[in-house]
């Protein structure tokens, strides 16, 4: 029998098959890495010196068994707040991280900085922290944050700074900071300026503007730790809207998504995008089930490819120009005082929902409508996402005033 050498034909066929698999394989991320085989990745949380796992846990939606597994996998940063589940989330975290586990895990909680729409006093914030400690069944937290600040004034507030000092002096909080969902750049820069903050937790995902990235880099240089949250929010929100539209009109063709709806790959890519930024110490994605925990955890062992990044950037760019993200940073940028966020919202109600009455009510509730826009030949109002404001505002005025 003739010895069977590999012919060129066979070689080409095999090589072609391998190339085909490579070309058509899912682009978003590398092959599945089981959570158990993922190497932990740590970064230092600014001047706190704490070494935290880059993928950490936002406990708000995580049931206790998931929190417990997260700890066993090696995640060492657990984020909760006074207000989550009426205080029960702090109790859940406290139960899971009781005993010896407490020494190896870091807990972050958040306290309200306003009461009845007024700035809270230092004593009120301290009461919030003490209530949290009781529910967490611990005598200290590694980090306490004032929850959801959105202005320089709130960051610089004397009562907050006084609370921070007392929290640290009493040993009830090792480090202090703030969380922010709106006017993030302003908040971060104020925290840097203040010098009293150790950490800022901020919305940070692939839709953010360059100034926020620059602020985070500056904060890191100044020694602040930056924790990223809502890293996957644009994806999750899009999927929720997609599912809601399908449920509302089951017979209509499903609205097209820019990415495949099946699988979890885009959410993983979004998380990895945030963690690829060296300014970010860790992210705290919410994980409602074991599957999400395993997939998010495994992001530590994955690589964001060039095409993945380009896809995310392209999606962010295309949607940013058509879609207001509600960041609120346009507020106050009009010299005539037009209430841009409120007018924008009223336009959205009209255009996206066809709700004329609601849109009109919302427009009329705005403290300053868009009447002045008719006088301005050149709009100087700022949108950090390059949304063209003047057409939206003048159109809203013409239809809703």
């Amino acid at each position: 029998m003739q010895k069977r050498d590999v012919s060129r034909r066979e070689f080409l066929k095999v090589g072609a098959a391998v190339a085909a698999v490579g070309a058509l394989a899912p682009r978003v991320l590398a092959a599945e890495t089981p959570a158990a085989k993922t190497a932990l990745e740590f970064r230092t949380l600014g001047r706190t010196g704490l070494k935290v796992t880059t993928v950490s846990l936002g406990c708000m939606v995580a049931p206790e068994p998931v929190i417990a597994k997260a700890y066993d996998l090696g995640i060492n940063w657990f984020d909760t707040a006074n207000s989550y589940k009426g205080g029960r989330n702090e109790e859940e975290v406290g139960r899971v991280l009781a005993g010896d586990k407490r020494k190896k895990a870091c807990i972050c909680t958040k306290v309200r900085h306003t009461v009845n729409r007024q700035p809270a006093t230092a004593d009120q914030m301290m009461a919030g922290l003490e209530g949290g400690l009781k529910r967490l069944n611990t005598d200290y937290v590694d980090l306490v944050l004032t929850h959801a600040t959105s202005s320089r004034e709130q960051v610089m507030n004397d009562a907050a700074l006084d609370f921070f000092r007392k929290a640290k002096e009493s040993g009830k909080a090792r480090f202090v900071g703030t969380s922010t969902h709106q006017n993030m750049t302003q908040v971060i820069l104020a925290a840097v300026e203040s010098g009293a903050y150790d950490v800022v937790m901020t919305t940070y995902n692939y839709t953010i503007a360059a100034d926020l990235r620059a602020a985070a880099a500056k904060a890191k240089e100044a020694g602040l730790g930056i924790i990223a949250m809502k890293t996957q929010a644009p994806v999750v929100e899009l999927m929720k809207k997609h599912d809601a539209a399908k449920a509302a009109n089951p017979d209509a063709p499903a609205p097209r998504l820019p990415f495949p709806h099946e699988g979890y790959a885009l959410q993983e890519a979004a998380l990895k995008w945030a963690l690829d930024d060296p300014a970010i110490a860790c992210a705290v994605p919410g994980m409602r089930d074991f599957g999400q925990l395993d997939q998010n955890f495994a992001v530590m062992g994955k690589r964001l490819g060039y095409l993945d990044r380009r896809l995310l950037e392209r999606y962010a760019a295309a949607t940013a120009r058509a879609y207001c993200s509600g960041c609120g940073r346009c507020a106050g940028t009009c010299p005539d005082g037009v209430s841009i966020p409120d007018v924008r919202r009223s336009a959205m109600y009209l255009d996206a929902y066809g709700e004329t009455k609601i849109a009109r009510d919302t427009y009329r509730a705005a403290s300053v409508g868009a009447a002045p826009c008719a006088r301005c030949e050149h709009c100087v109002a700022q949108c950090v996402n390059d949304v063209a404001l003047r057409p939206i505002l003048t159109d809203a005025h013409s239809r809703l005033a």
Partner: protein
Amino acid sequence: MRRVHRGDTAAGVVILLALLAIAAWVGWRGLHAPPRQGPEGSLKDVFDPPGELAGLRLKRLRYFTLSDLHEYINGQAPRYFQFGFKALTVAEYVSPKGRDLSLVVDLYNMGARHNAYGIWKDGRGEDDASLQAGNAAYAAGNMAAFWKGGYFVRLRALTDDDLAQLVRKAAVEAAAWIEDGLGQMEEFAAFPRDGLLDGGLTYENEAAFGLPHLNAVFVAEYDLKNARFRLFHADAGAPEKALDVLRAHERFLAAGGTVEERRLEGPDPLIWGREKYTGPSLLLARGSVLAGCLGLNDRAQAETLVKDLHARLKTLPKAPLRTAPHGGDRTMTYDGQQTTDD
């Protein structure tokens, strides 16, 4: 030397070029696929509140949807999404006499009664006292919250004065805005009461116990003869889907624990096993309905409880208990409180 046929070479080149073209097309599609924004949900689901409440007048209305709920409740928004949030109306009432007082009423349309119940229960703190308003309510200080129909409603008086009485009165009055001919959650009536913990009835719309295959689940928590466990049930919609859930549960146990009994054919298909984080679990399907027990080591007892639960579920009326606000005299135990329908 082996002869290379021209045909082989040509075929190989064609295959390579084709593959390169496919790869380029895939890459181009990914880079240039026009992103399209799905619709954002519907504002048709917002509530239109009356102009007066508890002697106060309506001053301002705001609306929030899937897109911007986080602007109002920050990091809690995802929890509301888990419970099927549709839209929020925020109505602010003020004193007509110029008194410095704001009563803010948040009317969350959660889309369905069980979702409204679920999010209402989820936010209840230990110190919140029960209140008679809506289908069920709790209150603490200047805050009250109830659920009724598909709505979860929270009222807060934004003042340092003690306005607890006003807030409670407003809650009762606001509950009357919402029609709900069904009253209490009949799905909870199937759970046995022996050993049921106070406040032990909950609903999870998504991923109950962290398990992605268990959705729209009614749960009851027990402490019976020092054994803590949970019973639960859900309707998968179709018998085949119930079997799919059993198979998913089997995979979950196999991945991180042990499957000790597997019976997917014949009557009463079930899965029994153990897993480190969820403990022992038994899941049994009858038709489209799943019932289960989590946390009980005694397998025989778990099966008995689950089969009893199935039997009770079968006795629940499918039709609404009543179609008018009043009528019927059935006594139900709800959330540890004995109530009698009027």
